[in-house]
């Protein structure tokens, strides 16, 4: 078994899990991804609990795919992003999935904490639409096109 580069050129479909409670943000992100690469499949979890269910294929998410990337907001209902991050990064099956914090918080404390918990990068949401589009485009360019990721684990 050889490691398969994940990318637009590959036969596999790239899936992204967006954990975000604001429908406006979800829509904006979806629009931005579509603009960057229309083939990417974006799943959405609107709170931390749902995100974990999705990742662990529990309940209604039994058939969920394993995402290639996770975009995680910090302030979420039920279980906040920090705890979701901590669980992902302490789970052997999940910790290899690149997990990006995407939030409005510019707090130094939040930034430091996120990296301590193993976030792969910390991004603040730009207010201007053009800047947001550019940010999503660079995520896709870097994490989907350029980076070689670990082979997908057989999960579930």
């Amino acid at each position, binding site marked *: 078994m050889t490691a398969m580069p994940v990318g637009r050129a590959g036969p596999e479909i790239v899936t992204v899990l967006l954990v975000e409670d604001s429908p*406006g*943000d979800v829509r904006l992100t979806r629009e931005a991804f579509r603009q960057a690469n229309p083939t990417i499949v974006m799943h959405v979890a609107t709170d931390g609990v749902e995100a974990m269910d999705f990742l662990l294929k529990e309940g209604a998410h039994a058939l969920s795919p394993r995402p290639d990337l996770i975009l995680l907001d910090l302030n979420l209902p039920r279980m906040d992003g920090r705890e979701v991050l901590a669980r992902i990064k302490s789970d052997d099956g999940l910790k290899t999935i690149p997990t990006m914090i995407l939030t*409005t918080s*510019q*707090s130094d404390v939040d930034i430091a904490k996120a990296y301590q918990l193993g976030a792969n990068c910390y991004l603040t949401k730009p*207010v*201007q*639409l*053009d800047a*947001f589009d550019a940010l999503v485009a660079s995520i896709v360019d870097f994490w989907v096109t350029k980076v070689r990721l670990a082979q997908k684990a057989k999960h579930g």
Partner: protein
Amino acid sequence: MEMPQAPVQDFPAYRDVGVSKEAQSHLAQMDGRYRGLLEAAPDAMVVVNQGGEIVILNLQAEKKFGYHRDELLGQKVTNIIPEGFAERLYADGLRSAEDALAQQIDTGIELTGRRKDGTAFPIEIMLSPLESTEGVLVTAAIRDISVRRRADRVLAQMEERYRGLLEAAPDAMVVVNQGGEIIILNLQAEKKFGYRRDELLGQQVTNIIPEGFAERLRLDETRTADEALAQQIDTGIELTGRRKDGSAFPIEIMLSPLDSAEGILVTAAIRDITVRRQAESHLAQMEGRYRGLLEAAPDAMVVVNKTGEIVILNLQAEKKFGYRRDELLGQQVTNIIPDGFAERLLLDETRTADEALAQQIDTGIELTGRRKDGSDFPIEIMLSPLESPEGILVTAAIRDITVRRKAEKTLALLEGQYRGLLEAAPDAMVVVNQTGEIVILNLQAEKKFGYRRDELLGQQVTNIVPDGFAERLHADGLRSAEDALAQQIDTGIELTGLRKDGSEFPIEIMLSPLESAEETLVTAAIRDISVRKDAETHLLQKVEELRKSNEELEQFAYLASHDLQEPLRMVTSYTQLLARRYKGKLDTDADEFIAYAVDGATRMQRLIQDLLAYSRVGANEGNLAETSSEEALQRALANLRGAIEETGAIVTNDSLPMVLADEGQLVQLFQNLVGNAIKYQNKGVPEVHVSAEVYGRKKWIFAVKDNGLGIERQYFERIFGMFQRLHKREEFAGTGVGLAICKKIVERHGGTISVESQPGMGSTFRFILASSE
């Protein structure tokens, strides 16, 4: 055995020798006459004829040179003094007797003697002529100066180290070698024993301390230096010293070893204890009668027997009553205390010593003393029994209470004088004597402490001011009135007052001395500072509340601006999305409306960002560290790269120093100032220059100079305020927060910021930061 100093000066008696007859008989005659004298001389003596042959010699000469007398008689003197003597015979033989007399042995000729065993030793000879029938003979007094020579060497060695010490010593000091010869001595030793130094050097110490010292040399030389050190001179050995004139005096010596190249020497510190001995014998006489105690007493003391006769008295008693001791001894005590004492003798002698101890002198009997001149004075006596072989005696301690009586009067007077002043004072006032007793107080003091006046008078001030006052009485009693005046009540001592009901209250006291006839009293002005203390506490509370509220406000500003961003993003993003997708597809009104919405949202977003930045300046306090202002500027310029490239601005700077700053804030400061300099421009190319100069002690003043629009003087202050803008939005965008942030940053760093400008001439913003040194 050398003799104690038969003085050499006596020797020229040989001169008197008359006309000779026959040599041999003459010599025999001379020998007979002067033998005693010769033998008594401490030096070796030889008489030599003009042929250089020895014709007479003494025992010391035999000993020194190691020959029997008959081995030397008739032999050439060169046998024992190979050089320098025989050669002088002629010359010296011709000198007159007067010349010889003038020549002291100490100014003699230093030569070398040779013993029978061939060993040589240094000698000093003094020659003098001796007329005889065979012609002029020459008498040579020969002194072995080995020891002196050695002593000279040792002395030279020790000179640096010990001479100063020796001479500085209050005692006579002699250093003695193991042969018992004195090799060093000090001036005190010369004086004490009445010798010149050269008369003692090389001599046996037994000359000045006949017994008890030389015997100890062996013993003491083996003691370690530490043991010697441990031995104090006061615990020394008591011996007898002998002066040159033969008189003896008691001495105490303390011996200690002194290591030298010549072996262990013994240093003897010799103290003349004549006076001490005298004192001791006197004391011994008085011992049974407590003389020492009596004399040490501050009061006049007399000891009286059962019949009322004074048997002992002290110096104070002599002084107080104006009698000499012998005028009172054996006299009736009624002479000095006419009434009230003699009558008590019977009564008091029966008290036990314990009872007497229990009776304080201050609670004694007040009587009247009578001086020799007939004048009376108030006294207080305390009696106590004293067991003696003659039966129970009575000791009376007599205190002159004239001063106290006067003081009591003075106090009454003082009270009268100051009462008005005291009562007028707004503070509680108490006057305290040196034993801490309250002697005067005012109405305010009564009120404040809740006592009636009579409850406090005569009581210890510690009853109302438990701590911190009484302890200061002594120190303050000694301060000058000027010092006290200089001390304002507002700089007084904060203590705690204690009311009669046991409650406490904070006070401030100001002490000042008050001279009275008897002693220095201390006036204490006592101010109740309850109200002030409450106010202080209240103020501290308010300050704390304010600090908290300020903190909350900053926190609120931060959180608000942060949370406001979220909905704002929605407004901004979706109006922009609208604009992007539908611009030109709806009507022109729609395009305009969308444009305003986008513009409004964008401005609000900038405002929130600036507010956030502003509140952040307050958020992380106290993170000042050594920071390169040069690097901070470069980072700011990197952040401004877009604006710089767009305008083609030329930003230059001098070399900038290390400062004490929060680096992030310093970057922000430069960014705002340089950003403003680039932004507020006419159409020309912006030129900005950043520089720094040393400003006072450990500070730098930075300048950001531009060629921009400039600012009118009237706005110099205003521009640093929050939301203050000088331009229309259409001219220059901005929130009016940038310079407010600059001001806050600089002030957080303990500095100030200002602007110097003229419209059309550019502006220079200056701010001060602490150096990192």
